[in-house]
């Protein structure tokens, strides 16, 4: 079963590293030197996670690299210091990659396969040897063994064994990827194929070694704030319920962090609703069989890279982020815009939208709060945001929220039949391919890459169930 919150020990280490980096960057005099972070986190003669303290430190150094926004694949010289990486990253306009594989942390999991464990009792019936269509199972020294050269991974031996002695050992990152974008490279380490990747971020949480990380933009945002630039935080609707704090306290906290203004992306969502409802009425009247939503950037990537035949059905309406950023820049072209959300694919969308300068995540915002010692419950609860966004727009972050909102504003002639794809996986992608061929079960399809909607995003702090409840209560 998937854990409710995206939290495990590997995530914790990443968050702690981010906090330490923010401290070192914003308060260099009072904090540990950047290059000492691996040593501080893994002092000698302490417990280690991996084989030895030195390997742990090496992995932490690569985590620092990714946290600074530099892909580990871009390493040229192993002796480049974390401080030098900070200098390099601040000179770049954008990251070379969105996701990076820490090859040192990657365990090079062998391809998914079946394995007979010690639970095998070498029974007399030996059904495993009988059901195998390739004669790959034989009993050696009283234990059944699979000849991997002959095995075709059909799994029949697993179903046949009464002792549950046969296990299937998966490759977690590969299994989590809905589009087959991650596979073993020549040395067994995993490689992400950018031509296929839809930046859904599922692999980040799937890898038990935490070997896949996103390339962050936090230090870029910090540099803008330090320079004194006007920085506007554009906060995703999924923020609702992330922290034990209300919007007033969150806004106050973001001001303390140095954001000059804070806007809710839900305001842009209201524009998306109005435009998309109109577009939908128009397209259905024209005889188009169905239209899909377009606000999930991972789905947009999926359509472009894997289901080109559905692209004509994807709504042309700009996303809530696009509308929000456009308005912010129209009001003040000199401002730098930062989207704060639960999503990785938004970083890709951000690079494609001229009005979006940076994208950071809820986890990264959390790290900024911790580093700055901001305690949300101590923030003043004084009205600061005029919440102009409608309740429908604020529900964009949960599955069926978008389709309900658009349906609520729909005024077309054709009867509306909305259908939701709640989470992208191999199965739902096959469904979408069938829809494109004319087998759509409805005429308005909402697609969310993350199960449950944005509240189930790869970079959330709160459990999806808890934040869904907070949003449903709006």
């Amino acid at each position, binding site marked *: 079963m998937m854990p*409710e*919150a995206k*939290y495990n020990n590997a995530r*914790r280490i990443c*968050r*702690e590293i981010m*906090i330490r980096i923010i401290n070192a960057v914003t308060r260099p005099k009072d904090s540990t030197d950047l290059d000492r972070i691996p040593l501080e*986190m893994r002092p000698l003669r302490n417990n280690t996670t991996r084989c030895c303290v030195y390997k742990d430190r090496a992995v932490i150094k690569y985590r620092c690299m990714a946290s600074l926004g530099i892909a580990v694949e871009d390493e040229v010289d192993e002796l480049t210091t974390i401080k030098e990486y900070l200098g390099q990253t601040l000179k770049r306009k954008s990251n070379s990659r969105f996701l990076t594989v820490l090859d040192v942390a990657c365990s090079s999991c062998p391809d998914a396969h079946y394995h007979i464990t010690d639970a095998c009792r070498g029974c007399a019936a030996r059904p495993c040897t009988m059901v195998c269509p390739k004669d790959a199972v034989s009993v050696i020294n009283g234990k059944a063994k699979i000849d991997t050269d002959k095995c075709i991974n059909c799994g029949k031996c697993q179903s046949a064994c009464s002792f549950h002695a046969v296990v299937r050992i998966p490759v977690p990152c590969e299994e989590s990827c809905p589009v087959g974008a991650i596979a073993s490279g020549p040395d067994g380490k995993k490689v992400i194929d950018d031509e296929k990747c839809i930046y859904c971020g599922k692999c980040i949480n799937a890898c038990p070694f935490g070997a896949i990380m996103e390339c962050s933009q936090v230090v870029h945002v910090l540099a803008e704030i330090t320079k004194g630039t006007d920085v506007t935080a554009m906060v995703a609707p999924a923020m609702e319920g992330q*922290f*034990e704090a209300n919007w007033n306290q969150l806004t106050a906290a973001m001001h303390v962090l140095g954001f000059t203004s804070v806007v809710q992306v839900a305001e842009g969502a209201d524009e998306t609703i109005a435009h998309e409802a109109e577009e939908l009425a128009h397209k259905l009247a024209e005889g188009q069989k169905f239209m899909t939503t377009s606000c999930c950037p991972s789905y947009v990537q999926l359509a472009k890279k894997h289901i080109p035949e559905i692209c004509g059905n994807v709504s042309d309406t700009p996303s809530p982020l696009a509308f929000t950023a456009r308005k912010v820049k129209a009001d003040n072209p000199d401002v730098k815009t930062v989207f704060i959300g639960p999503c990785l694919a938004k970083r890709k969308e951000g690079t494609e939208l001229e009005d979006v300068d940076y994208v950071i995540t809820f*986890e990264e915002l*959390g*790290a900024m*709060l*911790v*580093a700055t*010692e*901001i*305690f*949300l*419950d*101590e923030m003043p609860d004084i009205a600061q945001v005029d919440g102009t966004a409608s309740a429908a727009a604020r529900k964009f972050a949960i599955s069926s929220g978008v389709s309900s909102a658009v349906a609520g504003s729909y005024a077309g002639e054709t009867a509306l039949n909305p259908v939701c794809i709640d989470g992208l996986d191999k199965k739902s992608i096959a469904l979408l391919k069938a829809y494109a061929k004319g087998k759509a079960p409805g005429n308005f399809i909402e697609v969310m890459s993350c199960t449950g909607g944005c509240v189930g995003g790869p970079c959330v*702090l*709160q*459990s999806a169930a*808890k934040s869904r409840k907070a949003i449903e209560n709006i």
Partner: protein
Amino acid sequence: MHNKKIQIEICAGTTCFVLGSVQFESFEESLPAEWKDFVEVTASRCLGLCRKGKFSGAPYVRINSVPIGNATPEKVMEVIAEMLDLPEGLNDA
């Protein structure tokens, strides 16, 4: 009569939340039924233990006013089990 319950305060402050207090989301429900009369679990406002750069010990839990750093449900359960084993554990409350 030892009727004082063991007080478990789970810090719900910002630092502890970011660094993993989410693990305690259903902690109370996961306790063995026979413990329920001896243990009281509360989500506390920031306990203040993370301040002055001590964030790396988060999440914190306080058991009868003794702070536990890098708390996990397993770690806290262990401490409770030990206290319940020894009658004086309840006396200390």
